[in-house]
């Protein structure tokens, strides 16, 4: 099972409606993406808290036996 870039963006967008989201396909196999999410809600959170929120938005589509997405290189920050 694999995922399309827009599916990832839609899932993140649903939880972060005003975020700036950039998805990069790293390998063309639907399994290795990078995602940058810039959102005001991250201000004051540390990286683990920020990335936990993004992983939560992906609702279990990550890694593991049922995971569709093997690798998502995440970069998160609040707007400058």
């Amino acid at each position, binding site marked *: 099972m694999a995922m399309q870039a827009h599916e990832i963006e839609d899932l993140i967008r649903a939880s972060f409606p005003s975020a700036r989201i950039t998805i990069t396909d790293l390998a063309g196999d639907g399994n290795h993406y990078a995602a940058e999410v810039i959102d005001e809600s991250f201000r004051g959170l540390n*990286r683990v808290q920020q990335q936990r929120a993004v*992983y939560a938005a992906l609702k279990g589509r990550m890694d*593991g036996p049922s995971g569709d997405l093997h690798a998502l290189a995440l970069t998160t920050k609040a707007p400058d």
Partner: protein
Amino acid sequence: MTDTTTQIAETIAANDVVLYMKGTKEMPQCGFSSRVAGVLNYMGVNFKDVNVLADADLRQGIKDFSDWPTVPQLYVKGEFVGGCDIVTEMTLSGELDTLFDAKGVSYDKDAANKIREANG
């Protein structure tokens, strides 16, 4: 608490630095696990490696324990630090050095600087 959760809690309490990974520190079996284990090895950090591929309950249990969906997972003095992306960012920014200093974890400062120079 399930025995997996107890086992995890005991392991991270008993060891200053623990890396839950795919494979072992000598034989990593995933690029991301290999990168974090490689950084720790290169920096001469004494850490306990736990191979989640050897135990399916542990592979899921560690994700539930930290509410973090992927492996590797780095713990320092019982605290979840992050996965491959975060540890890489912290290594390059010097925050990992600061964390180790604050927690009294010994490491090779020159090696850490070499990593940063190489990724300048």
